[in-house]
């Protein structure tokens, strides 16, 4: 039976992993039949070996940092130290119930308290709350605090959030979730925010602006202090999207640039694993003005050095709770371990090597004739190349290159983002890759371009070496097939014969 068949299709009625089930218990007396389930839930009926084999084999169908160079711009795919994982999984942390009293949690809370403090220091802000469970929830918390701040001052006319057109999609989406209108600000040809447009946009309706710096264009916003003045003078606050914080860690601090609130994607800058989609953690940092509004809980420490939860009783103006317990606690432990391993000097080293690798790779690709988008700018930790010319001249699109890179053993960079650069790849090598790996990537890019020039059809057919060829995305969206149903064994490619070598 092909091991790429769905786990359901490998089952046999009544088969069970016997060591896992606690026996044959009777139906409950005290629950009337109307409350009970009549039909089996349709879960797989397989042996323990089948489960292990299936999910081991499936895992091998993934690219990951542990197996491949993964220069996915804006996503900061760098090495996730294994120590962070194993230390967060220590039984004392792992088995602790969220409602366990604080006296059985001083070890855990000490880590969180120190993490709050370290994050405040690296961001240059006054207070930190760790509860948001990803960048987007951090954004939510931040923008909700901006709203709460204006409300508390009865400044109710501020109904707009400004967002540069290069911004990540979560920024406008968040602003709307918080009840704001979004106003886009254009980017100038050097990749900076268009100051003129900004000046025209700010006014009494401005609640704030959401910015990434360095931006998702991979460049540092040079007039940031001026922008901060413009927005602050108009009565708005500055929100820092910290997805790119690793680029400036220990070099310049958002608080010093004039930001009032920031989220930090701990799963990027602090190297907690992305887990094929999550979990992350989106700690937020705030300046003095927003301190009373921070989401809860936060860890406090009293004079005796004991840790406690700061709650609504202490912070009545808090925007409230964003999760049932303490956010993604285990992710926070991983970030804590990472931060402690780095320490003061390690923080700057991250920014330096991330920037070095990006500028080296950018330079090498430019030398090979690729079109670097903002060619007069330094790359921060990431940069953009555009295939506009190759597309026009040879029909080679960014998508073709992305797919073909997979065959060469490299995960594709972020494609077609930011939206304002045509046929672009956003490339972020990160600080943990070696020069050899970067050189290999350049060689692959050169080879792929040549392949496209020689035989464009071959390129359009890529990838070839993956478990599947290019997938029909249109069909996926049109003929929705979102769940297997019992009796529905129709995965193709399950017979033994097709497992053969070509």
């Amino acid at each position, binding site marked *: 039976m092909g091991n790429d068949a769905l786990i359901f299709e490998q089952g046999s009625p009544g088969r069970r992993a016997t060591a896992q089930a606690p026996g044959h*218990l009777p139906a409950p007396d005290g629950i009337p039949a109307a409350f009970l389930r009549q039909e089996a839930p349709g879960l797989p009926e397989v042996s323990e070996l089948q489960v292990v084999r299936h999910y081991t084999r499936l895992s091998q169908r993934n690219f990951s940092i542990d*197996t491949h160079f993964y220069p996915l711009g804006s996503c900061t795919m760098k090495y996730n130290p294994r120590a962070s994982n194993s230390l967060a999984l220590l039984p004392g942390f792992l088995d602790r119930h969220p409602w366990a009293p604080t006296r059985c949690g001083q070890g855990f809370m000490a880590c969180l308290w120190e993490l709050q403090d370290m994050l405040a220091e690296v961001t240059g802000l006054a207070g930190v709350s760790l509860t948001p469970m990803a960048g987007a929830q951090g954004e939510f918390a931040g923008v909700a605090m901006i709203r709460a701040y204006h409300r508390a001052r009865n400044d109710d006319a501020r109904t707009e959030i400004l967002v540069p057109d290069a911004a990540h999609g979560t920024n406008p989406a968040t602003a709307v979730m918080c009840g704001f209108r979004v106003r886009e600000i254009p980017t100038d040809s050097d990749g900076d925010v268009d100051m003129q447009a900004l000046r025209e946009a700010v006014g009494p309706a401005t609640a704030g602006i959401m910015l990434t710096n360095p931006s998702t264009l991979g460049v540092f916003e040079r007039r940031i202090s001026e922008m901060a003045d413009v927005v602050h003078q108009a009565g708005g606050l500055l929100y820092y999207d910290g997805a790119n914080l690793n680029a400036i860690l220990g070099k310049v601090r958002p608080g010093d640039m004039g930001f009032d609130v920031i989220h930090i994607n701990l799963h990027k800058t602090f190297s907690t694993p992305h887990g094929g989609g999550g979990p992350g953690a989106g700690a937020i940092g705030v300046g003095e003005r927003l301190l009373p509004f921070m989401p809860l809980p936060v860890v406090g420490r009293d004079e005796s050095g004991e840790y406690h939860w700061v709650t609504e009783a202490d912070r009545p103006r808090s925007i409230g709770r964003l999760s*049932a317990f303490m956010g993604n606690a285990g992710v926070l432990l991983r970030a804590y371990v990472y931060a402690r391993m780095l320490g003061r000097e390690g923080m700057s080293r991250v920014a330096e090597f991330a920037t070095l690798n990006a500028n080296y790779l950018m330079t090498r690709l430019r030398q090979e004739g690729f079109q670097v988008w903002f060619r007069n700018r330094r790359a921060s930790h990431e940069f953009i190349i555009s295939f506009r010319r190759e597309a026009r001249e040879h029909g080679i699109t960014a998508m073709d290159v992305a797919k073909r890179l997979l065959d060469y053993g490299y995960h594709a960079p972020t494609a077609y983002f930011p939206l304002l650069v045509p046929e672009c790849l956003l490339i972020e090598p990160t600080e943990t890759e070696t020069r050899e790996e970067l050189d290999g990537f350049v060689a692959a890019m050169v080879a792929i371009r040549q392949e496209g020039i020689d035989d464009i059809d071959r390129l359009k057919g890529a990838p070839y070496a993956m478990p599947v060829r290019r997938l029909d995305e249109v069909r996926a969206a049109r003929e929705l097939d979102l769940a297997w149903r019992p009796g529905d064994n129709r995965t193709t490619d399950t017979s033994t014969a097709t497992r053969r070598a070509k």
Partner: protein
Amino acid sequence: MLDTIGVADINALFDEIPDALRGASLDRLPDGLPEQAISRLMRERAAADETGLCFLGAGAYRHHIPAAVWELTTRGEYYSAYTPYQAEASQGTLQLLYEYQSMMAGLTAMEVSNASLYDGASALAEAVLMAVRANRKARERRVLLADTLHPVYRQVVEAIVANQGIELEAIPAAEADGALDADSADGFGDVAAVVVQQPNFFGRLESVDALTDLAHAAGALLIAVVNPVSLALLKPPGMWGARGADIACGEGQPLGIPLSSGGPYFGFLCTRKAHVRQVPGRIIGRTVDLEGRSGYTLTLQAREQHIRRSKATSNICTNQGLMVTAATIHMAMLGGEGLRQVALACHHNTARLTAALTELPGVETVHEGPFFHERVIRMPGPAGPILDRLADRGLLGGYDLGGHSPQHRDQVLVCATEVITAEDIRHYAATLGAVLEELHHGQ
């Protein structure tokens, strides 16, 4: 490398940062620690947090997790991958997520599932926003929350939907019964959605069939907040009432996720196919490749922030993928019958536990109707000091309901899952007996 770039030293790479801003001081940061030193520190801290026997529930539950689950989940290929944007290089994660969606659909008896939200509470908040969007017939942005809903869930919903002009109102519960009174409720008025939790915060089973029909009669969508383990035993939301619930959501933690002080867990959300375009978060679909082979990919991305930006169904981007990986493997390992056995063991153990505790003088159960795996116990005095003394003896005796409402200060919510043994129950009863004696004698 600096030569290639053409700069003299690494600091030159930061020359676009205005001088006035440079030179971040990081004085408060400690020196870096080698792995050996941080390992020792963390081991000492973790050891300090070890707790003994635990009868706490109230939204997070200790279950046995088969050893294979996390050994597989932490394989680098799952652990260190990003969101599967390049489908062809992510078939492992994508197929697994498709299997997850299938399992959740089966468990809830709903048609579609997303690929996860942050946690149970925030999933409920998203469900409320989704219901308000999806229910085009409702004139009011009014949503009813059962009084028997987990109080923290209510807080989270308030915090998240507050800024969108949605009115939240309560459906009162009968104090003595610990559950909603579906019979006496004479219609819900004009509401967009009704939220019911099953089993409810107090562990009691709600009359979900009647409540669902009432909600539908009012033109509202019914949002079911459910414990996924209970669904192996209890009627699934898709079967509630005449037409079934419209959205089922909840906390995925009981499906193989360690307690871990509260996270990371994951929220699940299932619904009817008709509402799929209103669903927040990622969805995986099955399709075919150029050669006609089955393959899996992110789909319906036009709902999401990276495409739809300010018009997206939610701002969620990173979700709880790895937790879902564990939950999928956990469910495959147990199967339907295994999960049902777990649910039964939880129920029986909680019944045994409350029977044992209520043999002590002054200890009694508060509600009488059917329950799943939690029950409220009344102590012969304020629960706080009793629980403290139990904790002194290494026993976490339950959740103090006085924390949410002072009139319940003698009430404790207890839970005994399948990991609790008969000996553990005897131990709790004996220890509680000793503590009550002590307090009685004013020690």
